[in-house]
Structures are given as structure tokens and as C-alpha cells.
């Protein structure tokens, strides 16, 4: 469609009435539209395919049509309809009013609490996207919208890559494509299938939120793009001293040059943002200067020989970084059961080096009183649980980056575990079977309920029994 032949407001395309034009960019026009019998607020995106328009908008639009159709869930706008490229190209999807992360950035400096809230929402959304075999590759604040309940919605899939679909971008461009401020080092080397490229962009966004400043600026030349292969950004705490060390650790972990040194999944970032006290602080957390000249020169030299290993198959990559929840009830468990569970965790870690283990104990909530004595008692109980879990895990000798410990307060153990698993993208729950007891027959066991209702894998561990005669 020629740029001067854009459809008029009030006209109708395939049964969709154009209500108002809400955005006109260089590549596409967006209208609010309605359709008889459809309650959901809708928008229609129409590409500008006229003479002189960049071919990127043509290919990008095809890519977006192709990928949107395959996506679902709360973290993307719901796909509604598409029009054929040869006749009237368009894309109809759910209207997300926003605000966008870009709007937030423009308003005022974000508090640490807000950064955590937005960052976690975005990491949750990204993980969901990656689970659907899609790498976005153009993540930036303008492409992140929020629903009224705070859920992040990722938009604009014009440069995205779907692991199971032909890559049309790769076909048409020889140069790296993306937004210069957010593009990852491997994208500069024309690698388009690594989900950790999105984690890099997330790191840039977190940096920008924390420092009101872009870590690599907004380069325009290829050599400017390449600079992030060897120059590391000024550490956030050197710019904004109120940034806590754990947040700097998370941000710089996302911004590692080599993708294998970054977080293995967005779910791990979401978890760390939600549990800042448990972030393992490394040298990254305390850095106050960029690397020295010698290091930079070494990196610069190496950057010319940087070869990227073949792409990980997306779903395989994610399944090599599972989040495993181990539900422990140490005071009431049989020693042999605890040992059997430990053995299972040992095997899980051996199988997937990028896995994360969270050990959880659920205790009844302490009755809140103002009396110091009661609170102290509760605290000490909490601490005892942690000590017991650490003691249980000690023979595994796992680093604190892999294993975390949690005490959940709840009346219903099964519900607490299920809720934790849902919120933190848990892939597998390991839980012990309770031995037969009269109580279990009456109340039903926690493991039975967890196994029945969890939306992930559940392994119920039994104590090895001697064979009965």
C-alpha cells in the first residue's frame, strides 16, 4: 500500500471498522478498530509499503504476522486476524492501552522498588516468550507495555526469531538489525537464535532504569556497535550510589559479553529480583570502575576472533536450565527419605549444569503480636528451618548460585508450594511421600495434592522399602 493511500478512518477492511488513527510511524500505521460481536478492544496495524520505504518494514511485517499467530498467553497481545500480503496486509490484535516502560522512564527516576517490580514483570514475560520458542531480539522500553494488574506485555515482533519457523530477517539483511542501544554482542555477529540476547537487552533496560543513562550509548556505526564486545559499561553504583550491590550484580550479570556467562534463563533473573537477599554477590557487585586499558585491549583483540558456537535449540536450552523446587519437612521426615531426596537432587544437578535448586519448608504463620518474645521465637524457628535445610544440602556441596533456601509461611502446605511453583516458573517439584499413617488417610497427603494440581513435573520420593515376603 502506498503511503498516500492509507485507508480512511470510518472505512471498513474485512469487517473491521477503523475508529481512529492512534499512531503513525515510519513503517506502519495503527488504528483502533471494532468488529461486530467482538468485545475486546482491538487495533489494526497496516504497514507502509510504498515506494521509498525501507524493505525492513516489509519483511518485518511478514515476520510479525507469522510469529504473532503462533503466540498466546497474557504476555503478548492476543492475535486476532491477518490480511494477505498480496492483497491488503494488516494485523489485528488486542489493544493494550499501556503505559509503556518508555512512559515510566520519561516521567521520573525510578525507585529501587519500582525497578524490581518492572524488571520482574518483564523477566516473567520474557520467560513465557522463550518457552514459546521465540526470541524477541528488539527488546526496548517502548516495546514493553503494562496491563492494569502490572503484567508486562511484549509487543512488536518485527525482528523476532521463531525456532521452528524460517527466519526471513536472516534472508534479507546482511547487517545486524536491532535497536543500537539494546542490541546484544552476538546479534552484532549476526547470531539470531540465542534467547540470552533478550537477557542482555533486559540488562540494558535495568541499567537505564537504575542510572537514567544508557550503558553503551546510542551508537550509529558498526564500529560503535562493536564497542560493546570489549568495553564494559561504567558500573551502575559508580553513577548512582543508591543502587544496592545485589542490583548491580544482576545488571552486570545480564550484560556479560559472552552469552554463556549471562543468566541461563529469564526465570532466574525474575527469581533474583524477587529475592534480593539471596543474590550471590561476586566481584561484579562491588566494581566501581570499568576494566583497565590492558583488559580492554585484550578483549578488543579477542573480539576480532570471536566465533559464536552453533545456536542452542531454544527449548533444549531452557530445559537445560530448570528450576527445581525441593519441598523439605526435615523435623518430621525419615532420614532415609531425606537421603533419597538428596540423591535425586544430586542427579538433577549432574544432568543440567545450569539448573537452580530452591529448598523450601512451609511453616504455620506465627501469630503476630507486639510482644518481642513471640517474634523472637518465630524468628528462631525460621532460622532453625534454614539451618536444618543447609545441613541437609551440605553433602551436595553446591554453590550458593545454584541452591537457595526458603521458609514459606502458610497454613496450607500444598497451596503454598503450588503457589511458589507458579510464581517462580518452577519446572520440577521434588517432594517426599509421607509414610502411611492414620492421619494421612483422613487428611490426604501434601504430595498427593501437589502431584495432582501442579502445572509442572512432580517427583514424589519414596523411602526404599525392603521387599515383602
Amino acid at each position, binding site marked *: 500500500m502506498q503511503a498516500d493511500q492509507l485507508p480512511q478512518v470510518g472505512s471498513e477492511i474485512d469487517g473491521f471498522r477503523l475508529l481512529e488513527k492512534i499512531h503513525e510511524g515510519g513503517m506502519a500505521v495503527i488504528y483502533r478498530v471494532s468488529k461486530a460481536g467482538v468485545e475486546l478492544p482491538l487495533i489494526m496495524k497496516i504497514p507502509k509499503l510504498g515506494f521509498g520505504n525501507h524493505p525492513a518494514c516489509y519483511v518485518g511485517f*511478514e515476520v510479525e504476522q*507469522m510469529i504473532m499467530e503462533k503466540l498466546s498467553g497474557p504476555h503478548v497481545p492476543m492475535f486476532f486476524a491477518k490480511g494477505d500480503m*498480496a492483497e491488503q496486509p494488516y494485523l489485528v490484535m488486542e489493544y493494550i492501552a499501556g503505559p509503556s516502560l518508555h512512559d515510566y522512564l520519561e516521567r521520573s527516576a525510578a525507585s529501587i522498588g519500582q525497578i524490581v517490580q518492572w524488571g520482574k514483570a518483564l523477566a516473567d514475560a520474557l520467560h513465557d516468550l522463550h518457552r514459546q520458542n521465540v526470541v524477541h531480539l528488539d527488546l526496548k522500553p517502548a516495546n514493553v507495555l503494562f496491563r492494569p494488574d502490572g503484567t508486562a506485555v511484549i509487543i512488536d515482533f518485527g525482528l523476532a526469531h521463531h*525456532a521452528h519457523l*524460517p*527466519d*526471513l530477517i*536472516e*534472508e*534479507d539483511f546482511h547487517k545486524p538489525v536491532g535497536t543500537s542501544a539494546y542490541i546484544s554482542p552476538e546479534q552484532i555477529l549476526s547470531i539470531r537464535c540465542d534467547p540470552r540476547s533478550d537477557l542482555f537487552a533486559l540488562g540494558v533496560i535495568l541499567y537505564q532504569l537504575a542510572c537514567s543513562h544508557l550503558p553503551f550509548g546510542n551508537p550509529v556505526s558498526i564500529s560503535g556497535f562493536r564497542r560493546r564486545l570489549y568495553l564494559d559499561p561504567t558500573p551502575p553504583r559508580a553513577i548512582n550510589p543508591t543502587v544496592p550491590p545485589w542490583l548491580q550484580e544482576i545488571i552486570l550479570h545480564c550484560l556479560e559479553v559472552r552469552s554463556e556467562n549471562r543468566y541461563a534463563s529469564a526465570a532466574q533473573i525474575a527469581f533474583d529480583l524477587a529475592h534480593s537477599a539471596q543474590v550471590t554477590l561476586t566481584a561484579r557487585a562491588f566494581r566501581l570502575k570499568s576494566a583497565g586499558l590492558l583488559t580492554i585491549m585484550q578483549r578488543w583483540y579477542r573480539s576480532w576472533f570471536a566465533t559464536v558456537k552453533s545456536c542452542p535449540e531454544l527449548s533444549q536450552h531452557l530445559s537445560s536450565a530448570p528450576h527445581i523446587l525441593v519441598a523439605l519437612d526435615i523435623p518430621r521426615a525419615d532420614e532415609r527419605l531425606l537421603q533419597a531426596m538428596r540423591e535425586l537432587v544430586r542427579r538433577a544437578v549432574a544432568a543440567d549444569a545450569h539448573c537452580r535448586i530452591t529448598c523450601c519448608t512451609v511453616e504455620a504463620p506465627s501469630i503476630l503480636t507486639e510482644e518481642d518474645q513471640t517474634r523472637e521465637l518465630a524468628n528462631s524457628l525460621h532460622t532453625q528451618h534454614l539451618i536444618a535445610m543447609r545441613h541437609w544440602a551440605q553433602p551436595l556441596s553446591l554453590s550458593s548460585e545454584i541452591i537457595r533456601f526458603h521458609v514459606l509461611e502458610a497454613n496450607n502446605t500444598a497451596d503454598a508450594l503450588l503457589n511458589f511453583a507458579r510464581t517462580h516458573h518452577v519446572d520440577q517439584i521434588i517432594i517426599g511421600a509421607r509414610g502411611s499413617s492414620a492421619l494421612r488417610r483422613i487428611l490426604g497427603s501434601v504430595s498427593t495434592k501437589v502431584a495432582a494440581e501442579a502445572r509442572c513435573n512432580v517427583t514424589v520420593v519414596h523411602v526404599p522399602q525392603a521387599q515383602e515376603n
Partner: protein
Amino acid sequence: MKLAIFSDIHSNLEALQACLLHAQSQSVTQFAFVGDLVGYGADPVACLEIVVDLLQQGAFAVQGNHDAAAVSGLCETMEINARESIYWTRAQLGQAERQLLQNLPLFKQHEDMYFVHACAETPEQWTYITGPRQAGRCMQATQARLIFSGHIHQPTLYYKTQSGRAYPQVFYPTPGVALPLLTSRQWLAIVGSAGQPRDGNPAASYAICDRTLNTLTYFRVPYDHAKTAQKILAAGLPPRLAQRLERGY
């Protein structure tokens, strides 16, 4: 309307039956065979019977190099196992079967689709499409938007724009995923072999083109390859032809 495309059945009755059953479960109503119905396997006559039935119902079929060799000519340039199986096949075929194979066209065009066993540029030379260069030559030889071929026993998809790069891009499809065949591009779909897969996966390979939704889906269908292998050995065909079915090489 759904069209199932089969290639390189190679007298493998079990694989053909399994694929047809699968296609039926996918509500396929039209069929295309892009060559090499016979050769290698022990059931040329039974396979041709099925194909004849479908041809009478409007299926498309083109000739493959093994089909041509089974009817006439010297096959001295063929690999030793292939040659032996061709001699064996010749002895099995009756007049009617020979006639059928003889009369198959080298290519067939229907609407925006082009069916050919090997390369569309010179179908009679049976050129292997082993990479983007050959694929580019094949795609340039026809105006058809969708080209379906076989010959190399590996499911592969090539695609290009008219104005884009000289060579098309290559894509290895994931079975069961519907791929949109964008109208702005030309597509060359090598559907893989139903009767003798060689990509390390012994399951039979074929593809379904949904003409209404304009998508292409590759499928892998497991079948009783042990039974096929037994028949090959029992027929006195080279043992290697039986062994390779087990691991798909």
C-alpha cells in the same frame, strides 16, 4: 483442501501404508508422488497398486530416476546396491506396471505448484539439490511459487524473494509445525523420503500442504521397519538395504 506429498517410497509398503493412514487422520483429500516409487525395497507391485488407485482418483505423480531405470536403459552408473535392486525390480514388474512407470511425466505443473523428482532446471539429469546453489538454480527454472521435490532423502525447505539474495535460505523443518508459505516468496520443499529416510531418523517422512491456510507441515511417521527389512532379506536383495532402514542412514 489438504494435499499430501510423498517422495522416494522405494517399494516400502509398510512405510507407504503408515503414511497414508496418517494422512487420512489429517483429513488429506489429494495426493502427489514426486518420484522413486520403486527401487531398493521388496514390494514394488503392491506399492504401485496403491498409487494406481490414487492416480485414478486424481493424484499427481512424476517419474524418479529409479522409476526410469526400472523400465529401461542401462543403470551402470548407479551404486552397486541400487543397481542390483533395479535388476531385481525389473523381474517383478508386469506389463501394466512397466507401462505406468514409463508414462509418468518428468514434471507436473498444477496451479502455482510444480512437482519434480530432482531439480526443475534439468529434470532428466537427476541433479541432487544438496545446497542453496543448486536450490537457487532449481527455483530459477520455474515461475511456480511452490516447488515440491525429493531425490535427496532429507526433509529440507528453501525459500527466497524475487529480489533478495541470489541464493535461497535453507531451513530444516521441525515435524508437526505448520509453516506459513508466504505469497511474497518462492518455496522449494524437499519432502524427505517415505521409504528410505537418510537423516538418522528411521521414521517415514512426508509433508502436507494446506491449500486453504497456505501452510506446509512436515511429518515423521514411525512404521514397522523390521518387517520391511525382513522382506528385503527374504527377497535376496542386498542386506545393506535392509540394515539402513533401522537407523535411517
